[in-house]
């Protein structure tokens, strides 16, 4: 079946080439429609109920989508600098899509004083015209810094820093491809022309973040794929000394990438920061299968050379040895990626869809294209050194195995114990793991954007904004001083929390006006009466209040600025805040704490849950798959070990090194399991195959390890290098993903080749292969005297400890004069018992399915008294005395019944002999 699949490329070469070419052309045409999505929307779960509330609050209180221009200068308040600032602000107003600018020249202050003629109030712009003298500039400075509403928002306390807030058109489609980049570039070009005039001048806001994400994403896309390809080629050429072995994964990867990204373009699935990893992932993951296949192909070619067979035979050999594992590994890897679909975060979902398709497409392309390539170029790749041991020029894998064997042979239990302790330690460390989903954490700490964001926080306040919103059922509720005091109390609580930089509400505005009316030295206090509140509010234009109170005064809004980048911390404080806000507001108010960055950070919780679900499901599926493969749950459990150890170690390292679980690192576990299980499948499949022809299971384990080790080590190292290349990503999340995945791949070598074999040597695993291959006629077993009075379970147990042997006609099963302690039961075919006495040979008996022979040698080590020769193709079960005693020591009932049955058989034989002699 597997061979047939792989031979499609051999048999229908032209059709396969035509199909692959056509698919590549069709999907390739979709590449032009590929779009990049760097918006934050995809970080918020689509089912988040707060989305609608957020949109409503944004609609009512205005968008939080603003760009801040930071201006710092020690001489800011001098006529010259203010003139430069005025020019800068004027030029910013001309930038396309800028709908509003709030800066020094648009700000109004209210100041009160008591004069001889009575109270006086001044409501005026900080700067109505450019100052011509230093005195005018100083007056403006005092006016600006005297307004508590502006300190921390638009001016630093020392007045060295000011900010210009840019609001962009609401009616622009923010998803428009180049909108953010264009706005960012336009603003940046204005800033560049003024940069020499101020000590510091920069912008921070969604256009910059999006533009930087986009440019970093493009750089990643261009850099990481080729880098991974280079590393892959280098490691394959280094280890396998074959140009063809390097060519194959490159061809399959390139085709896969065209299919995948082309289809993404057609389907409108955007490219995001996670999918930028896909080229690297496909190149490294796809190459692992190709490495196993090329390894098998070279073995096939080496054997073929000995037997005079051709390239096609080598492909058949490759298919028969790697076909099933290939299908299984594609399945498990695809499952690993598909598990991310559980995430409700759009970013991860898009990545899950794309990566799963890519893995499946890579599998199909591999099956179709690799045989074609091998037929075309494989002939010239026959080695002179036909010894399988020498296929790989570098003996690093052999050395690794040698080191592992020392532990396996000399300290197996210590090794297991040490591993268990290690796992316990890292499980404990994993308990320190925390989650974050903040987009700013995607950038490395030394990124100018992060540094400048910190500077804004230091001098003014954090650039992140959320709202604490209170809603009353009664109209004009927030004209009542009692309700305004609730806002004041909430703000005081937030100040006590100590994590938020700045809060601003209508209460602040009223306290400020009240102070000015009372006289400049009065305290900042709320007005006492509702009428006073209403009358003071007349001094504000609606646009000055719309962020803080609804037009009917039923809803009030506290605007909070902060720079908390850690979801865990933020969520904890927000949870506390929500409780206190509701307590302070009382039962007559609906309260909510809402903001885009809060939703993004809250998604961290769902990130954790979805990853737990995904990992759980994947492990369950692998367990079921492996249990079926080995017809026992024990097989399933053992197959899980090489997957579980790297996961535990990975989460432990994350906890130990304080690496958060984020959209990048959260995927490592499922993807790593999906990939690491590939090696396990190859190892166990080969072991299974070997078990069919030997009763030396320890030997089978070693042989399997020896055969699988090289491709497994090479592919794991290639994967590690490939994932390691992601460290060059511009995004911290991608780099962390790469580093952890690389480490996980290395740990999987240790788990697959050191720990799993130690366990396999101690636990007998017999696979489905064996059961299927036996193809035993149940009636044969029913009739066989060896299994007389035995249950199906006992029979199966006994059979699984035996070996299945296949014999060609004329082949001797037992040779006269040799000593052996094995007994045989014929399953299929016939044999003759022939005794040789000097020159004469005599046929003593004919043996049929179900019959036993060699039972005397089984009981006692004596010379065989006759040959047993197959007269047709024959399959027989071989029962080795020592093996039976050892493996069945925990099953005394089975041993007793078998011994009883053998005694009965011997008794029958004795009776026959006596009859013969008597006759």
């Amino acid at each position: 079946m597997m061979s047939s699949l792989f031979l499609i490329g051999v048999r229908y070469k032209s059709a396969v080439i035509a199909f692959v070419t056509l698919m590549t052309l069709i999907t390739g045409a979709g590449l032009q429609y590929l779009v990049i999505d760097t918006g934050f929307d995809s970080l918020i779960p689509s089912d988040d109920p707060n989305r609608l509330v957020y949109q409503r609050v944004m609609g009512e209180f205005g968008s939080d989508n603003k760009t801040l221009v930071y201006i710092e200068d020690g001489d800011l308040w001098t006529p010259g600098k203010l003139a430069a600032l005025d020019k800068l602000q004027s030029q910013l107003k001309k930038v396309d899509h800028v709908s509003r600018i709030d800066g020094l020249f648009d700000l109004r202050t209210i100041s009160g004083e008591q004069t001889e003629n009575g109270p006086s109030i001044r409501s005026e712009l900080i700067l109505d015209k450019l100052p011509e003298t230093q005195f005018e500039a100083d007056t403006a400075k005092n006016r600006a810094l005297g307004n508590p509403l502006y300190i921390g928002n638009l001016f630093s306390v020392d007045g060295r820093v000011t900010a210009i807030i840019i609001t962009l058109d609401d009616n622009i489609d923010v998803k428009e491809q180049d909108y953010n980049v264009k706005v960012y570039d336009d603003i940046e070009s204005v800033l560049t022309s003024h940069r020499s005039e101020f000590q510091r001048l920069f912008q921070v806001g969604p256009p910059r973040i999006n533009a930087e994400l986009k440019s970093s994403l493009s750089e990643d896309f261009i850099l990481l794929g080729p880098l991974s390809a280079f590393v892959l080629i280098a490691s394959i050429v280094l280890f396998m000394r074959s140009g063809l072995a390097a060519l194959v994964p490159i061809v399959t990867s390139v085709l896969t990438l065209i299919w995948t990204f082309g289809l993404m373009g057609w389907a409108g699935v955007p490219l995001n920061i996670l999918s930028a990893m896909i080229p690297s992932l496909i190149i490294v993951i796809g190459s692992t299968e190709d490495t196993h296949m090329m390894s098998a192909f070279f073995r096939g070619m080496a054997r073929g050379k000995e037997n005079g067979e051709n390239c096609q035979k080598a492909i058949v050999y490759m298919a028969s040895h790697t076909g099933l594992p290939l299908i299984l590994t594609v399945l498990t890897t695809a499952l690993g990626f598909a598990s991310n679909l559980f995430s409700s975060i759009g970013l991860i979902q898009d990545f899950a869809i794309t990566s799963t398709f890519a893995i499946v497409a890579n599998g199909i392309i591999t099956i179709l294209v690799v045989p074609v390539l091998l037929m075309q170029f494989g002939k010239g790749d026959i080695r002179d050194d036909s010894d399988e041991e020498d296929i790989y020029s570098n003996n690093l894998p052999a050395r690794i195995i040698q080191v592992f064997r020392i532990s396996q042979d000399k300290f197996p239990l210590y090794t297991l114990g040490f591993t268990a302790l290690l796992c316990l330690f890292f499980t404990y460390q994993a308990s320190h793991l925390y989650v974050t989903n903040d987009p700013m954490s995607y950038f490395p700490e030394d990124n100018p954007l992060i540094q400048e964001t910190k500077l804004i926080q230091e001098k003014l306040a954090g650039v992140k904004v959320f709202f604490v919103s209170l809603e009353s059922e009664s109209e004009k509720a927030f004209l009542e001083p009692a309700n305004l005091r609730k806002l004041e109390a909430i703000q005081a609580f937030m100040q006590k929390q100590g994590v938020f930089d700045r809060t601003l509400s209508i209460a602040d505005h009223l306290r400020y006006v009240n102070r000015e009316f009372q006289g400049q030295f009065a305290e900042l206090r709320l007005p006492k009466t509702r009428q006073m509140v209403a009358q003071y509010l007349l001094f504000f234009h609606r646009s000055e209040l719309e962020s803080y109170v609804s037009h009917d005064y039923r809803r009030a809004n506290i605007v909070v600025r902060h720079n908390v980048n850690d979801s865990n911390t933020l969520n904890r404080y927000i949870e506390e805040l929500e409780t206190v806000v509701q307590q302070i507001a009382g039962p007559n108010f609906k309260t909510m704490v809402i903001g885009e960055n809060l939703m993004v950070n809250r998604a961290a919780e769902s990130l954790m849950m979805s990853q737990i679900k995904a990992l759980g499901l994947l492990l369950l599926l692998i367990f079921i798959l492996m249990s079926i493969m080995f017809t026992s749950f024990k097989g399933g459990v053992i197959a899980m070990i090489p997957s579980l150890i790297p996961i535990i170690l990975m989460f432990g390292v994350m906890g130990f090194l304080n690496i958060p679980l984020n959209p990048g690192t959260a995927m490592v576990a499922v993807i790593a399991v999906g990939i690491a299980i590939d090696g396990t499948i190859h190892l166990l499949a080969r072991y299974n195959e070997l078990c069919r022809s030997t009763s030396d299971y320890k030997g089978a384990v070693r042989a399997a390890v020896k055969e699988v080790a090289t491709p497994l080590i090479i592919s794991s190292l290639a994967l590690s290098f490939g994932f390691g290349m992601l460290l060059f990503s511009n995004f911290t999340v991608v780099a962390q993903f790469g580093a952890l995945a690389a480490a996980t791949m290395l740990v999987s070598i240790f788990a697959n080749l050191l720990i799993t074999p130690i366990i396999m040597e101690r636990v007998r695993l017999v696979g489905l292969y064996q059961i299927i291959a036996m193809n035993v006629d149940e009636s044969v077993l029913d009739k066989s005297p060896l299994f007389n009075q035995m249950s199906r379970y006992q029979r199966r147990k006994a059979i699984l400890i035996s070996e299945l042997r296949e014999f060609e006609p004329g082949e001797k099963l037992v040779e006269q004069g040799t000593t052996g302690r094995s007994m045989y039961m014929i399953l299929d075919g016939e044999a003759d018992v022939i005794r040789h006495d000097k020159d004469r040979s005599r046929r003593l008996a004919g043996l049929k399915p179900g019959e036993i022979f060699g039972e005397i040698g089984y009981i006692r080590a004596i010379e065989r008294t006759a040959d047993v020769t197959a007269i047709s193709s024959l399959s027989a079960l071989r029962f080795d005395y020592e093996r039976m005693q050892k493996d069945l020591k925990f099953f005394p009932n089975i041993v007793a019944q078998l011994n009883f049955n053998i005694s009965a058989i011997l008794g029958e034989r004795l009776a026959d002999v006596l009859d013969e002699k008597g006759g």
Partner: protein
Amino acid sequence: MIRFFPIINLRSLNVSCLLSILMSISMGLLAPELKGQVFTDEFEQASGRELLEKVHNTHEQFPYVYEEQSMILIDRLGQKETRNLKRYSRVEQDGQASFLLVFDSPEDVKGVAVLARRNKLGETTQFIYLPAFSRSLIRNAGGASHSSFLGTDFSVENLIGEELDNYILERQRDSIIGGVEYFVVDVRNNNRKLRRHYILKDILFIARTEFFDELDQIYKCQTQHDLTPVLGDMWRANMLLMQDFRENHQTLIKINKRVFSADYVPTKVFTAEWLYENTIQAVELEMQTEESS
């Protein structure tokens, strides 16, 4: 001194009076038709200043105006807030002018008043009266008279009229918008264009004023609607709309009642005492506060 009583008691009129009124009304109705061509020809070569002086002289014939207004503030979401006000204005023969705006509703701001006085030199002083704050007029010392006031999109200057001597007035090329002909006059200070008036050629009435920022972009626009002939060439708008494009906010003033009468706007109206007597007393509010606390 010209006095005009738009609210006429018909019973007290004799036939000749009635005929003269009817004549006046028909002249008023016909005025645009008859005068349109005259204005067009007459001002074809006129300067900006001449045009605006003529506009003022034509439509500001009555120095004493009392109005009851509804002021509707419309925010960017179309949400409305309505205030009812009384407006008093009085221009003396020597050029001094007084202007008073008193809030009638909402209840919480009832009695709040803005008082503006312009002296012979054209200098304006403004006072605010907040009954809830204290029984005193608070001088609005800062802020140019072109700054918007009390949360509206209008400035005091928009409502009391500009002092032509303070500006440079530049006639621009005439314009036709929607088939209607306009004279166009720019109002500038030394540095830049501040406003552009569109004057209906037929009745010489400013129907639209655009306000420009330092980048020479329109940021506000005032339009006058529901134009009504008052007497002879004199017209008044019953509805004023000011749109602020930067703030995405509008203020609509609807004139519910207008009386051109000195009796309605006696001098005492523009004093602190009158305000204290005729609006909610701060003392009462303080008492309310004490009771509630």
